[in-house]
């Protein structure tokens, strides 16, 4: 009982910390350094894992147990013309590890831009080039084992809408080969700044899904392509 209490308290503290980090997040960056935050949120609030049931359509509830995705190919452009591209640009954003949301860039002086470019997912060349380290290391659990390829987006949780074992849903979106490539690119208009805050809003993502009829995607295919299209649309500059 005491242990349970301690666990609960720890979770509360963690979530409080998460909230603090997210709210303080958009004030870093200096001297050619730039920070881009990819913040997992639910209806503009920092996403809380496990403990929170989000209300859905009045009577339904959703709980998120895991949410991870790859950001790659980060660049800055001026009116569509690329001005800066991060080299070896692969970042695993994990809602469980708040620090993973922040991507630090070194921008050369004089780079002028009004657009941010990034992709969600891993490109096909990287997918066929063998073992990689860092955020791409297969120990991160974002690589399929029974067939080769990165999982671009992993979303797992529970909802009463899912008539599955323990009401669970799990979406592993990936696939690099034709005809079902799932990497998606986004271009956002931005104001030049040393820090940019983006939201990946799960309420928009889940709002576009049909959890009552679709609870699981575990391999490449047209379903993964459709949800990848939906997911990229959920990214937006955080409202002030």
């Amino acid at each position, binding site marked *: 009982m005491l242990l349970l209490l301690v666990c609960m308290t720890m979770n509360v503290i963690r979530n409080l910390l998460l909230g603090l980090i997210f709210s303080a997040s958009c004030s870093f960056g200096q001297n050619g350094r730039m920070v881009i935050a990819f913040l997992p949120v639910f209806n503009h609030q920092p996403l809380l894992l496990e403990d929170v049931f989000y209300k859905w359509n009045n009577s339904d509830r959703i709980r998120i147990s895991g949410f991870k995705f790859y950001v790659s190919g980060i660049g800055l452009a001026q009116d569509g013309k690329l001005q800066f591209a991060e080299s070896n640009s692969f970042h695993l954003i994990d809602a469980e590890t708040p620090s993973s949301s922040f991507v630090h860039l070194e921008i050369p002086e004089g780079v002028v831009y009004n657009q941010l470019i990034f992709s969600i997912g891993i490109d096909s060349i990287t*997918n*066929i*080039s*063998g*073992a*990689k*380290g860092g955020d*791409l*290391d*297969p*120990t*991160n*659990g974002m*690589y399929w*084992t*029974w*067939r*080769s*390829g990165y999982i671009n987006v992993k979303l797992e949780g529970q909802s009463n809408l899912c008539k599955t074992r323990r009401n669970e849903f799990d979406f592993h979106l990936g696939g690099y080969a034709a005809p079902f490539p799932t990497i998606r690119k986004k271009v956002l208009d931005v104001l030049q700044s040393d820090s940019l805050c983006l939201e990946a809003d799960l309420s928009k993502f889940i709002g576009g899904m049909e959890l009552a009829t679709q609870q699981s995607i575990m391999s490449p*295919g047209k379903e993964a392509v459709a949800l990848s299209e939906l997911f990229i649309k959920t990214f937006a500059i955080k409202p002030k």
Partner: protein
Amino acid sequence: MKKAFVLITICAVFIAFKAMDPVLYSFPFNWPATVYNFTRNPLSEAKVQLGRALFYDPILSQDSTISCESCHSQYTAFAHVDHSLSHGIDNRIGTRNAPALMNLAWGKSFMWDGAINHLDMQALAPISNPDEMGEKIAHVVDKLQHSNIYPELYYKAYGDSLITGEQTLKAISQFLLTMVSANAKYDSVLRKESSFTAQEANGYKLFQQNCVSCHTEPLFTNQEFASNGLQVDSALNDLGRYNVTGDATDSFLFKVPTLRNIQFSNPYMHDGRFKRLHDVLKHYTTGIVHSKHLSKQLTKPIVLSASDRVDLVAFLLTLTDKTFLFNPTFSYPKDIFSYKVKE
């Protein structure tokens, strides 16, 4: 422009080979270029030895009972003798025959259905399959980090005792890449160091007439996917390549396997249904089941007399490479593991 690129690539590969320890590679020079890009993972003695230890160590499996070698033993050309389907932890049985391992540097894809696109990623499949090793690579790395021997082996190999998944997979690749089999009697005949008997020569002629379009020399596989007219096993109902592509025309297609060291790599076929080479030849001559998936090379019947079959088998036995099968550098690394026992 394209020519220049090819030239640069050749130079890069050549430099990479030069940088590698010469005893580690003995790639036959009349063979095609390797598919594996050695510049991204140049062989070194310490990394090969690390990979060799990992290959033979059951620590890769959930309960430390199954190693790679359990289903890929050297004396059977790194296949699984007498077992039609692969075996895993808790006596679980898989759905396919463990293939022989050799000449993997030339492999375009791996597994019977080509589900794996790169040699580095191959080990993830058996490690994670619940019917094989039933483990997770992250947990394997954790176990290796806490073992008596591996931090030191990784330090020797990578100059860092902090173990990663990338290093682990690349080290396994390194060992597998050294497993080149290109020194069978067939090869020595091509090098004009010996000659076929009359029987073998006739067998080679028959092979070139009937088999070579799929079992292309020098690898003895074209690495394509094909249906070879086997009756579908209704218990397994394995759709093969379809499972990877989702394309109905790929149903029941499996990768054409190499025939090198075939004398020792029985049982044969993706589900290990044939025990003897004569069963295989009987299948190709009288057992083909016609379907819309059947390889077009097999639509016309292969006719072989009883003596033709004997001759063809005689030729297939010239693909046995004893310098590969009994090469001590591929065997159980006693030295590494005796150190472990001492501790």
